[in-house]
């Protein structure tokens, strides 16, 4: 799919272009990546369920990333940013696992 193609393009560009991540973004970038991965896998799952819609995907992608960043930001305001980061990662990790298992069920029908 187009998104997978995009990831490949991004990784290749990322290998060759070295950019310095600004300091203020550093605590949020890993969260954003994990949230985006979750959205991508959710899209893959919905594709197999035949209700994939690019509009829904884009909105869920952006809202996922934004919610994750906001949670961590609020956490940093309250002084519990590392705990909230862990919480977000755990929740997203569980979702990624369930999405992958749903996709696996479609591919291997097992």
């Amino acid at each position: 799919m187009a998104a997978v193609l995009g990831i490949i393009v991004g990784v290749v560009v990322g290998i060759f272009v070295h950019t310095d991540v600004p300091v203020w973004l550093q605590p949020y970038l890993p969260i954003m990546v994990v949230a985006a991965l979750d959205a991508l896998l959710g899209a893959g799952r919905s594709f197999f369920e035949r209700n994939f819609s690019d509009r829904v995907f884009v909105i869920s992608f952006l809202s996922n990333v934004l919610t994750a960043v906001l949670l961590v930001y609020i956490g940093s305001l309250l002084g519990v940013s590392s705990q909230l980061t862990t919480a977000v990662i755990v929740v997203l990790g569980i979702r990624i696992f369930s999405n992958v298992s749903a996709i696996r069920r479609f591919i291997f029908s097992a």
Partner: protein
Amino acid sequence: MAEENEKEADSTQTGVFPVVEKPRKLSRAASSTISSWSEFLRELRHNRHTRGLVSSLILIALGAGVGYAFMAQQRITNTSYDALSESELVTLLDETNNQITRLETQRTQLSQQLDSIQTANNKQQEIERIAQENKDANDILSGSTAAYGPGIQVTISQGTKKDVSAASLFTVIEELRNAGAEVIQIGDVRVVTSTYVTDTKTGLVSDGVLLEAPYVIKAIGDKTALQNAIDISGGVGSSLRVNYGSTVTVVQKSKVDITALAHSFEYKYAQTVE
């Protein structure tokens, strides 16, 4: 008839409730999910949402963003303390403790000097003697004179897995310092307090000088302690071997000549106390 109907209505027996199924939406195919590869390919071709140019471009852009962010993040993780394992952190902590001990020794030394000045009969002479001693030591430290003495020579070849990074070379210097190296030279660069090592596209650069592999590092100090600092298991030597695939050889020498001088440094803000 009417009686029978009433009987049925009066019946108190409860059966299994009928399952009410939500009417399935009838899609093009009989099943609502994809169950085979041919179906998957057909869906790829016919799904109206994945065909539009604009939507494809958006998907590619989002995907590219994720991929790029991933690589950028991965690069940060490679270099920050976050990524260090517990044992590496413990080593770092040990090194810091060593440094504290050395600073405390230095403090004792300085207070001894102060005492000897205060108790000496000929104060002026004693002050001059200590000043000369300190000057000799500082000349060596600041790199304005050549030095020689027992020490080691470390040769690090370019890694076969990846190029030796500035951070790892810097760790070598730090380890040598912690092991009590008095004078250090990398290639043709004298290591002083302001010395830096950085990665550039052409290779490692230290104090504006391009370093060529194999990197030769000379250090004056306790030979055994210096060699241990590099060769200790799990230390910087083995991490260079394992992570970068470079060969690290340490040779103990009874006389190491350090001839490189540091650039003289013009102090802009700091002034000496008279």
